[in-house]
């Protein structure tokens, strides 16, 4: 009985929906979606960053890059890839951690055993934390 009742109500809602779609003109929704969720710190990667993203997230926190270079702002280099890059929502709240001087990230990336492109990671983290 519960299922039959549920399906009947859904069927009615479907009819109402189709009628409404015929009568109303669809409007763009992206801006409204992003604005609605901006307060929750949900930031988006761009298409280019998305394509590179699997490479940006391979850090295993072995710490070798920290021996080759120091910190990005106040943040230890391995942490940039292993903890800040994990969380690209709400990074705006911690932007102070990654601002400031940057070390030689090319040299640091050269010693990474899993090939994390650290310069790109720093760029993405900083862009998201500022946006």
């Amino acid at each position, binding site marked *: 009985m519960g299922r039959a009742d549920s399906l009947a109500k859904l069927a009615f809602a479907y009819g109402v929906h189709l009628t409404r779609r015929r009568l109303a003109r669809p409007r763009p929704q992206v801006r409204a979606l992003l604005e609605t969720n901006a307060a929750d710190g949900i930031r988006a990667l*761009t298409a280019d960053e998305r394509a590179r*993203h699997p490479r940006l*997230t391979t850090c*295993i926190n*072995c710490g070798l890059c920290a021996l080759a270079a120091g910190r990005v702002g106040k943040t230890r280099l391995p942490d940039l890839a292993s*903890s800040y890059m*994990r969380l690209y929502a709400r990074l705006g709240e911690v932007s102070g951690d990654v601002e400031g001087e940057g070390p030689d990230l090319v040299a640091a990336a050269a010693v990474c055993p899993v090939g994390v492109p650290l310069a790109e990671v720093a760029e993405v983290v900083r862009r998201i934390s500022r946006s």
Partner: protein
Amino acid sequence: MSVGSPYDVVVIGGGITGAGVARDLSLRGLSVLLLEKGDYGAGTTGASSWMIHGGPRYLEFDWDTTRLSCQDAGHIVSIARNLVYRVVFVIPVLAHDKNNIERMETAMEVYDRFQPLKKSHPHRRLTAQEALQVEPGLAPDLVGAVTMEEWGVDPHRLVFANIQDAVAHGASAFNHTRVTELIRDAGKVIGVRYQGPDGATAEARAKVVVNASGPWSPEVAAMAGARVELRPAKGIHIVYPHRISNFSISAESVDGRDLLMVSHAGFTLLGTTDDDFYGDLDSVDVVEDEVEYLLQAFERVFPAIRDYRPARTTTGVRPTLFKWRRYEDELSRRYAVLDHAGEGADGLISIVGGKLSMYRLMAEETSDAVCQKLGHRAPCETARRPLPGNESEVTPPGELAARCGIPALAAMKLQSRQGSNAEKVLDEGATSRILCRCEPVTEAELVYAARHEQVRSLADAFRRVGVAAGPCAGAACILRSAEVIGRELGWSAEQRFDAARDFVRRSWLGRAPVLGRSGWAQEELAQGALRGLMVADGTR
């Protein structure tokens, strides 16, 4: 064997339901003892999708479950603000999906009626181009998409916050304490015998015993000759140690089920399966076929999924109510409060079925049944009283970080676990050292957890504060964590080493099914860091 003073109620099971019952009853002024055989939330609760959701899926079967679920989710969101965060889904629709875009939007329009109950926004409909703009990782051949909002939650902290509040109101709660026997007298259950972590046995008398042991409920009820009938269902998740998509995403499986890729704060859960389970509840393994089933579904909508390295898998067994013939996915997520008085076990009440999103309501109804049995009149207060850490606004993370000398990210993560108690936690350890850098977790928080949160092992620490939950899976922090906990609990050097090795071995069981080629290479590197732990007796 020791016998303490009698309690009004003994609660068996320290998952979310048992913790909720203990909190509810202690807020009503009853004396409560809660016993958990493992760690709090280590069973079904911790293996969930980490969501307080309203269950749009149930609209097809039972709108009342959706309404109740949304209503209770709204209460949980209010009382546990520091533990919850919005999870926004983009639900892509492909050309041959079982539901076309109009049917999918209809379902969301109906669901929108319930969304205000849990303080969520209504859905949006996106064209294919719009969907790819907000989520560039989606398959380019999608027809369109709709969005849907749910809430994410750390279930381990939610359980513990309930335990903390119960204890603050007079309850006693012990983890790693197994009930070995229900004490009966002339057809009445009058207490329990139990064994603590040190092997010592004890007895606790109570007027009512609540069986809130989830999938273990039939086993506990059988101790009193009573019967609980479940249809246990196994579910697995793949855990990625990163947020890998802008939004959470749903996908249709090869057999037409709805699967979810949920973007949580810093990690992603991909799941879940739903299969009848007949095995040993204390030894539930993930098999590679289950992993492949999930990846196959998500590859259709998020093609890059196989390029990401998973960190581990989780698995648990749902205590679903018994129903013959139904396909697993169609089984109701409703719950039942069973009074076993008619089976010669007066004084024993079982709470079975249900889901995380309705835990508070389940606890309320169970507590109502207990109070009725005891003739105790007191209203339920759990819907309006905030859980510990939510009594006041939190300090902005940057401010807390500057005051305590830790990175803002560490402060933010700490607040997501401890809420307004974060500063008190940092004061405990008198050190600002970051112990687990991936999460990140401070040494002070681990010290606090060992002193005040019943952390008795590294696995307990993983659940309570997130140690070793990140991409390195403990390679960089597990020995340091063993040192800190060992110092607090008085472990010898050998015990500290053994604890770290035991943690690595156990976590390996969840990692092995998901290691791809690059995963194995990275595992080898991690093994280098853990060499002393992993090869001590020639086993992994």
